[in-house]
């Protein structure tokens, strides 16, 4: 599996999700996410991950801004998930930008059949395109790397799991650019369809990465941290040690004894 480290030219946001609570910082841009209903943490691929509890309607969010708005341009999200449950009804939202009917822009969610659905909306609701990873591909308690993308040039919507091949659907509509809130782990202004589980190292690109670049992000299942984009050398060791000295005590004493002996002999000879 060839890997190529992507450039960050088209990177808009990278949420490492290492915080134990509170605001989740955007390591790359300025899309820091507010904590709604106290999202806590656990470990997943790189340090901590956000741990969303569905029963508490937890999510992370930020108001609409140009960085997270799309319209008819190439864009892509990648994220690591480990769901704690599969929804019994409706859906569990992973990534969503949209309010009520008429203001929806894009959504990615887990369905009741355990698939990852990726949807874009035209004019906020009417006319949408869905692509689905297939029933049973999202499993509670199992870590999975998700890539969702919209290819504006080809008018295609695609989803891939664990850096595998994409499931793609042609799109007759283009994404709506509205003014709705952006959320991880839920949707709408009033939190709806909350997610239940872990989410880690989530990033958003205004562009589409190549398969080799996706492979680099996947890293054979180990994932990547934002710091992997630049060199982080280990501290360099220089050993400092004492070189054992040679101590001249014995020789000195011997010489002194010899000197005393010679002096005594000289005196004796003189006396005789």
């Amino acid at each position, binding site marked *: 599996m060839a890997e190529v*480290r992507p*450039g*960050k*030219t088209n990177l808009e946001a990278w949420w490492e999700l290492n915080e134990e609570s509170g605001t989740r910082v955007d390591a790359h841009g300025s899309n820091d996410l507010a904590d709604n209903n106290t999202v806590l943490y656990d470990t997943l691929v790189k340090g901590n991950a956000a741990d969303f509890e569905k029963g508490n309607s937890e999510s992370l969010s930020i108001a609409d801004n140009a960085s997270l708005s799309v319209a008819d341009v190439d864009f892509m999200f990648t994220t690591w998930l480990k769901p704690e449950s599969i929804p019994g009804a409706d859906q569990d939202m992973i990534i969503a930008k949209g309010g009520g009917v008429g203001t929806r822009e894009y959504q990615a969610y887990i369905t009741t059949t355990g698939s990852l659905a990726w949807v874009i909306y035209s004019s906020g609701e009417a006319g949408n395109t869905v692509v689905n990873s297939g029933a049973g591909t999202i499993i509670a308690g199992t870590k999975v790397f998700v890539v969702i993308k919209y290819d504006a040039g080809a008018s295609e919507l695609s989803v891939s799991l664990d850096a595998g091949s994409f499931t793609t659907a042609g799109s007759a509509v283009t994404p709506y650019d509205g003014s709705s809130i952006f959320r991880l782990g839920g949707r709408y202004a009033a939190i709806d369809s909350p997610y239940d589980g872990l989410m880690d190292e989530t990033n958003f690109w205004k562009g589409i990465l190549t398969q080799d670049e996706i492979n680099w992000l996947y890293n054979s299942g180990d994932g990547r941290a934002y*710091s992997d984009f*630049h*060199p*982080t*050398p*280990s*501290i*360099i*060791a*220089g*050993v*400092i*040690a004492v070189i054992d000295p040679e101590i001249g005590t014995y020789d000195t004493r011997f010489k002194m004894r010899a000197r005393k002996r010679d002096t005594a002999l000289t005196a004796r000879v003189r006396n005789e």
Partner: protein
Amino acid sequence: MASLIYNIGKKEILSGEIDLTNDTIKCAMVTSSYTPNKDTHEHFDDIDNEVVGSPYVAGGSELANKAFNADNTNDRGEFDADDVTWAVATLTARAAIIYKDTGTPATSTLIAYVDFGDDYSTTGEDFTIEWDSEGVLYLGE
């Protein structure tokens, strides 16, 4: 090629010819074509295949906010400095060279070769070397 401290650097740190506190200590970058030799490479004019790119300037950048720490947990003395960034850079680099800059390459003593482990490239993005949280280099047991 693993990171290393040049022998001339060890000697001049001990003799005081390199004063890490008061001398101008710089960080240059080289490509993967440079092969360090800790015995025969002594001064900056021994370095070849220095990075060429924007906005990188030959000779590199000075290390800012140098700091020293006696680490009693690991029994060593540590030298640290701010991370180095070349903003909106278009370049490829494989390693950094830490050296004392006298203004003349032939008398600028080499201190350390810092291997990144891989080539790192940027195209119009910031290029940052993020030093280890413990520092740039240490003298220890």
